[in-house]
């Protein structure tokens, strides 16, 4: 019973960590896609033939929507507070703009040529809320100032504030209409890039490679490349945790092995009798090996149930831990997630089950092989 519980706890700890890490990974991947686009088309210089590009991309089956944009740094100020913003010009009526899903105050639909949407960090730096006005200087205006002109800053009213969870977005992002951006940056009809939404984001690298063919001036960047290092870090983190959990499970397996070994030693007399009655070594190996397999199977099942139970009550458990240690809601404050994210990966469960069954069966087989090799006269003397 203790052995089964030990296996169950080992399996559950492995799967809970894996599933939550999968959840964090999935959530981050989703946010990367929504913050930066599933595939971004960029060029070495501003794209002039944007309508033609959009028309040709519209013919692609995998492309669900196309959002042209322009972007660049700008100085922002409100009163005595100022900051550097990374301004993105977007089409305000574009219903597929991912930022719409991250509005924490105001209304994205109010965005027009006289208004701006700010990241929450930048809004805090400038001490503004929805309805306040900020001044914005583009590099073109700074150039003009250098030539002795005194351009007035663009005055924009804050219509919405967004929080994506990515500090580089939240602390610097400002969104204005594409038309206003072109005007402030003297961009004419050009754009800096196009964001694509795809029917299958996981296929973005292949789609990007295909779309790139025959367009030497453009570069199609899939979302997996946009934040490659970050995604690698998440993957590495998961691998490291799997490794650590693997060691814990290995230790648990050794305890199972020693438990089974003790059980075999304890039953030496009976093993001797079984041999005296004609039991073949393979029958003894089968008997005790099966015991290990049985413990593994029950332990794995228990582990699956424990995993599901712990994950079902994960928010309550984390809340209690936060209350006990006074850490506040880390998931909400640090990661901006409403819940502890999770993502069940069948392959993780499959690997955990196979690994556990293998180890517990081996843990039963080793003492069974030892028992099967004993002389019955010796075994029966042990009590």
């Amino acid at each position: 019973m203790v052995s089964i519980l030990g296996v169950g706890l080992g399996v559950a700890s492995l799967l809970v960590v894996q599933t939550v890490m999968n959840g964090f990974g999935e959530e981050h991947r989703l946010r990367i896609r929504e913050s930066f686009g599933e595939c971004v088309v960029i060029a070495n210089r501003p794209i002039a033939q944007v309508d033609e590009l959009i028309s040709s991309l519209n013919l692609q089956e995998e492309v669900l929507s196309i959002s042209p944009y322009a972007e660049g740094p700008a100085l922002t100020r409100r009163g005595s507070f100022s900051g550097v913003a990374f301004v993105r010009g977007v089409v305000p009526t574009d219903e597929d703009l991912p930022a719409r899903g991250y509005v924490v105050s105001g209304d994205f639909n109010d965005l027009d040529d006289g208004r701006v949407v700010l990241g929450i960090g930048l809004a805090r730096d400038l001490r503004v809320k929805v309805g306040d006005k900020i001044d914005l200087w583009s590099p073109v205006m700074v150039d003009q100032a250098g030539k002795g002109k005194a351009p007035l800053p663009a005055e924009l009213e804050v219509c919405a504030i967004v929080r994506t969870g990515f500090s580089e977005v939240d602390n610097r992002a400002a969104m204005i209409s594409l038309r206003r951006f072109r005007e402030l940056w003297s961009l004419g009809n050009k754009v800096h890039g196009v964001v694509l939404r795809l029917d299958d984001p996981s296929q973005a690298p292949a789609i990007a490679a295909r779309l790139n063919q025959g367009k030497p001036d453009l570069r199609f960047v899939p979302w997996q490349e946009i934040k490659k290092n970050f995604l690698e870090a998440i993957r590495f983190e998961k691998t490291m945790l799997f490794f650590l959990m693997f060691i814990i499970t290995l230790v648990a397996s050794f305890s199972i092995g020693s438990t089974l070994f003790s059980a075999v030693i304890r039953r030496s007399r009976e093993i001797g009798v079984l041999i005296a009655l004609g039991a073949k070594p393979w029958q003894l190996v089968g008997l005790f090996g099966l015991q290990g397999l049985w413990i593994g199977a029950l332990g794995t099942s228990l582990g699956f149930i424990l995993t599901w139970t712990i994950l079902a009550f994960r928010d309550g458990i984390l809340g209690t831990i936060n209350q006990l240690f006074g850490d506040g809601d880390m998931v909400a404050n640090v990661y901006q997630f409403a819940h502890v994210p999770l993502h069940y990966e069948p392959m993780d469960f499959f690997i955990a089950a196979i690994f556990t069954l293998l180890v517990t069966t081996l843990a039963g087989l080793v003492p069974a092989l030892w028992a099967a090799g004993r002389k019955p006269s010796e075994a029966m003397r042990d009590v």
Partner: protein
Amino acid sequence: MSEIVLQANGLKKSFKSPTGSLNVLRSIDLEVHAGESVSIRGSSGSGKTTLLQLLGGLDVPDSGVVKLQLANQGMISPHRCLGQGVGFVFQNYQLMAELSAWENVALAAQIAGHGESKKEALTLLALVGLAHRAEHMPSQLSGGECQRVAIARALINRPAIILADEPTGNLDEVTGKEVMNLLLEVVAERNAALVLVTHSKEFADRTQRRYFLSSGVLTPA
């Protein structure tokens, strides 16, 4: 003379001890014929149990040969056919604590691959007077009853020879006599040979041939 069911020639066995090699058995020769009963007496530590284990294939001799007559297979080494030609009755019964009386009896048949053997087990339990205790666990049986179960277990595969190692050693005098009477009776009824290791001269006298083991040598008593 009936055919030989067990033949031992030149059996030697020694054990390592802190003071050097301890020669327990020195060239033992023994023949047992079908249906015959043989007793071996000797003082404690004389090697009676060791000899019985060599005869039954539970241990291997340092030198010498043991052969057992097995139906359709001729004379073969007993440790190659454990559970087939020999039935064991041990001093401390050696029953499986988790199995009921009939399951203990049937276990030997199942291991030998005789399949469903409950009916035969119940018949044998009836033969040893324990039909009403078939479902009882060993912990619910007296010592004498446990030994009766062990006798039934020894008989289930219809062995040519029964090797009994002080089967009354753990029993009181009255129960011991009952068990011995039963053992001799059922062995005779099944026409099996019997090798009985015992301290008791009274029980030994009831066998057809009697030996005494001393200083590793077996001599007729």
